[in-house]
């Protein structure tokens, strides 16, 4: 374990992360650290590797190289018989994942369970929280995200905004140290984006540590403490959100912020970077 020079261990630290899908290099050496209460916005064009970065942090995609530390604990990697890099200990990965809440672009609620069941499932089955306590906590979270009256509904009967709020409650129920949000509003109708951003804003105000992949520039400016701009799998620019969003240094980031990015075909095939990149 690497000794930490700072006053306290970073909640999350990734070092020199690389990931390729076939011949497509999606991540080309990304390092970043999130300290407690940090809210980091990750921006970038389609195919820049934003979603893959999040997915490599909780090992949904296995990085080809690089290290992930969660509060100082390194996720150990090894190689399988075919030379593929793979987690050395699946149990460690499962345990670490319980400490990293994940919110997906397409919600990914379990469709055969009600909202309440979705929220209590992992706390009960994975963390071993007693059912009664899990339900109490779920009800508390449901009130917080404004979905208490929908607790017994199935996901299919909710709007996208409600589904995403339920998914956020599901992630919070694990009491994660870091929340990873992968384009939480990109799959929503425009009029539903606000209600989800409001919930995330509240979480930031509570001091939650979060990594948010987002296209919402205004939201990033208002909510995140730092912004990281990815371009072609590398950190092109990073710094305090207000500063770099208002005065981007690189031409590429300036173009991205001014909307030159929109409506243009992606530079790389988005299908290869996972479903969360598809528009």
């Amino acid at each position, binding site marked *: 374990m690497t000794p930490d020079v700072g006053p306290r261990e970073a909640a999350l630290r990734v070092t020199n992360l690389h990931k390729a899908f076939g011949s497509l290099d999606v991540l080309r050496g990304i390092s970043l650290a999130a300290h407690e209460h940090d809210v980091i916005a990750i921006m970038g064009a389609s195919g820049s590797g934003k979603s893959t970065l999040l997915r490599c942090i*909780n090992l*949904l995609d296995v990085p080809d190289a690089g290290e992930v530390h969660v509060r100082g604990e390194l996720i150990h990697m090894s190689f399988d018989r075919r030379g593929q890099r793979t987690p050395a200990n*699946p*149990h460690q990965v*499962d*345990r*670490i*994942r*319980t400490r*990293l809440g*994940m919110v*997906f672009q*397409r*919600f*990914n*609620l*379990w*469709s*055969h*369970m*009600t909202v309440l069941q979705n929220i209590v*499932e*992992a706390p009960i*089955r*994975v963390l071993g929280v007693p059912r009664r306590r899990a339900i109490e906590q779920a009800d508390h979270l449901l009130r917080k995200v404004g979905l208490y009256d929908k607790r017994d509904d*199935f*996901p*299919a*009967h909710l709007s996208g905004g409600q589904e995403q709020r339920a998914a956020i409650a*599901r992630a919070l129920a*694990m009491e994660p140290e870091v929340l990873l949000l992968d384009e939480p509003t990109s799959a929503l109708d425009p009029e539903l984006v606000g209600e989800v951003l409001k919930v995330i804003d509240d979480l930031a105000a509570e001091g939650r540590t979060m990594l948010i992949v987002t296209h919402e520039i205004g939201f990033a400016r208002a909510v995140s403490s730092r912004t990281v701009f990815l371009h072609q799998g590398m950190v092109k620019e990073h710094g305090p959100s207000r500063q770099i969003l208002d005065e981007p240094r690189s031409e590429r980031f300036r173009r991205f912020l001014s909307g030159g990015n929109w409506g243009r075909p992606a530079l790389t095939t988005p299908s290869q970077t996972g*479903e969360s990149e598809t528009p």
Partner: protein
Amino acid sequence: MTLDLHGYGWMLWRGLGLTILVGLGAMGLAVTFGLIGAWGKLSRYRVARWLADTYTTVIRGVPELILILLVYYGVPTLIQDLAASAGRDLRVDLNPFVAGIATIGLIYGAFATEVFRGAFQAVPRGQIEAARAFGMGRVLMLRRVVLPQMWRFALPGLGNVWMVLIKATALISVIQLEELMRSADIAARATRLPFTFFFAASLFYLGITIASMLIQRRIESWSYRGAPRGQS
């Protein structure tokens, strides 16, 4: 006009009971083989994939009747011959009831394999990823997220397998098991009223299949609670 069964009605009812018993037993076996087969087909291991592919290819490619005769008459003979060549005297007799269930189960297990394979693949990838992202291990994920949804996708196909399976049990009349078809045959020969008895038997089969459809509909509507409408 009522159907006069000339005192052979009890025989048909008993045959019906046996048919249902064989059908349920074979279906249980078919579901088991189907789950194992689907696991094999979707396995990371090449040997498992190859075995499962061979199973479905061979079984689905050979007429049921031949397989039934092969198992009931062929397998005991084969074992006896093998024992004889090893200098041992062995007599093997298969119980037709057991042989019937085993053969029908084996055959329809191949069809169930394809049903389950499709059903497993129909479970949305994102929900599996969510299970992984929440720290669920493979077994927990299978039990809590994959299987419950897999059944939903498998039910229509399994209903279909059951309908064909229950009718295929008529084939095992050739191995002397007095199920519905064989009972009707015996009664028809004894009374020389083939139309009456085969017609009666066909009504019995129709009764089973109609009842099955009604039950299937209830199970499906129960399992579809919460499912997105229109698609799945």
